């Protein structure tokens, strides 16, 4: 049962990842990306991490993907469907991808990790909270600074200065 779910999730995740990159339309691509992100969330559920899974759904599928979608819609229509690729580069890329997959996969398969199984209960999300306030709290401060900085920065960048100047002038 679990295996079937796992397989289904794997297919969805990987398949939609490929689709996100290969679909002609960017809009469908972003929707496919949502599929991937959702698939990952599914995995999180499977791994008994519902808190992270929900966070994933909220932040990723909810906000990031939507943000991307809006951006996609901002750009011109023809750009959304434009998909020029160098064939040679594409094949090389596929080659690289396969080599990475095979070699890293071989490393994983070959290593002792294969035998690791666990019957212990999954970590409680309370532990996460305790971790945050007792151990990771400086990282949290930084996280705050990081978000503040990136938001102000992104705003400054995205601000249309000409419009602004016009307004100011008027």
């Amino acid at each position, binding site marked *: 049962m679990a*295996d079937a779910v796992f397989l289904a999730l794997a297919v969805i995740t990987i398949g939609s990842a490929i689709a996100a990159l290969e679909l002609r339309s*960017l809009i469908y691509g972003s929707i496919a990306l949502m599929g*991937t992100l959702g698939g990952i969330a599914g995995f999180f559920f499977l791994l008994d991490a519902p808190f992270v899974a929900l966070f994933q759904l909220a932040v990723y599928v909810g906000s990031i993907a939507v943000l991307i979608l809006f951006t996609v819609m901002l750009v011109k229509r023809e750009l959304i469907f434009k998909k020029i690729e160098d064939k040679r580069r594409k094949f090389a890329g596929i080659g690289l991808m396969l080599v990475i997959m095979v070699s890293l996969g071989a490393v994983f398969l070959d290593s002792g990790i294969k035998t690791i199984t666990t019957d212990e209960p999954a970590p409680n999300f309370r532990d996460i909270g305790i971790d945050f306030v007792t151990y990771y709290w400086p990282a949290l401060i930084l996280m705050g600074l990081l978000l503040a900085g990136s938001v102000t920065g992104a705003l400054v960048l995205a601000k249309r200065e000409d419009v602004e100047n016009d307004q100011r002038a008027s």
Partner: protein
Amino acid sequence: MTSELVDFTLVSVALLGIGIYGLAVKRNFIRMLFAVEIIINAANLNMVAFGRFLPHSGGQTMALFSIAIAAAEVAVGLSLIIVAYRMYQNVDIADFRSLKG
């Protein structure tokens, strides 16, 4: 648990490969952003999977940080795209090649 740790890692490796493929091949900046997100998610999957099998709460904590940072990154990346789009009316990164040599 019937699915083993290694299965999750293999999915993660596959996603990593796809992500790198996407970065190396795709020309549309937005699609490249997709690829980055795919890699980050692969890493997150890894972390949570490892955290589950250790078992240890750190994996999930890390995944949370990672998701948040990815969000910030995406925000910045998109703002850069917007600037670029305003300037060039284009998001094809392969056309952005005035700096070279």
